[in-house]
């Protein structure tokens, strides 16, 4: 979902660069209060892992592939603020080293993946976590559903940008249907990868998982 240069006009690119910069600034502030010496390395590893898995395009339908976005995954592992920063770092590395996504569109791509993907994914995770039993096994399930929901929402966000300032003139409803339809399929892969990864981290180091710790603070459950 990395937007190439040319899809969006200058005005829209500027608006979303501004919005993303503001979002990253807020995330920076949140991460400062939340991250500590114990959790910072996991934020770094999360960025690294998401970079690696984003290279692994999986087939979704005839002639189409998708890859992990990782917003919900990162938010569950390290919290939404650090997740926004981790995803933004991945996008910067991808743009500057690999020409994946255009530079003028970087703000718009960041908005869709680092902000919408992370926060919608995290919001859906919180909702699902609320209705599931309060145990470790629920966390990967809630994370998977968060991941699944985040992808079509990021696609919706792109469609919004398209509607605001595409250089092309095809109807927004056509783009909306195709984008959301395709990305619901990609979302299934996102959900699976997110669920499996979170369950692996929960199994090996549940004490580091933000979406688990933060569920239990009020209950005073301690994990040895």
């Amino acid at each position, binding site marked *: *979902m990395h937007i*190439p*240069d040319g*899809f969006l006009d200058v005005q829209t690119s500027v608006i979303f660069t501004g919005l993303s910069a503001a979002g990253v600034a807020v995330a920076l502030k949140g*991460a*400062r209060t939340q*991250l*500590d*010496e114990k*959790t*910072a*390395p996991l*934020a*770094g*590893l999360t*960025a*690294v*892992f998401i*970079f*690696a898995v984003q*290279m*692994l*395009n*999986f*087939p*979704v339908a005839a*002639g*189409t*592939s*998708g*890859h992990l976005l990782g917003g919900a995954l990162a938010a569950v592992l390290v919290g939404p603020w*650090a997740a926004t*920063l*981790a995803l933004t*770092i991945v996008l*910067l*590395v*991808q*743009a*500057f*080293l*690999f*020409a*994946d*996504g*255009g*530079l*003028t569109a970087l703000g718009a791509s960041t908005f869709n993946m680092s902000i919408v993907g992370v926060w919608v994914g995290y919001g859906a995770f919180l909702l699902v976590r609320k209705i599931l039993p309060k145990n470790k096994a629920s966390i990967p399930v809630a994370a998977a559903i968060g991941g699944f929901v985040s992808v079509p929402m990021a*696609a919706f966000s*792109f469609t919004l940008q398209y509607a605001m300032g*595409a250089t092309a003139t*095809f109807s927004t409803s*056509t*783009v909306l249907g195709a*984008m959301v339809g*395709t*990305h619901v399929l990609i979302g299934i892969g996102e959900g699976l990868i997110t669920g499996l990864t979170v369950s692996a981290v929960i199994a*090996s*180091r549940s004490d*580091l998982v933000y979406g688990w710790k933060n569920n239990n603070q009020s209950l005073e459950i301690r994990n040895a």
Partner: protein
Amino acid sequence: MLNNRKFYISGFIASLFLAGVVSFYASSHPDGLEKVAEEIGFLETAKENTNAGVVFSDYGTKGVDNERASVGIAGVIGVLGTAVVAGVAFKLIARKPKDKKN
């Protein structure tokens, strides 16, 4: 429970393996956005990215003809690059100043 060292080393090695080796087997079909753009017809509004000239453009390594090596090297460089940038950034962010100065 894995200790810190084992946990981070296994996570990092898994990432290196995925980006350096498994990436060769990734689907080369266009991703969702590109496919939609192609089918509806606005793919042609894409310009060549201003950053298209970078060394590892499109996850290949310039001057390396072997495709497996080309994408593998790009993947390993990407993992190392992300590790350096994210490692430094999060270390700075997590640092709690002991005095009032930041």
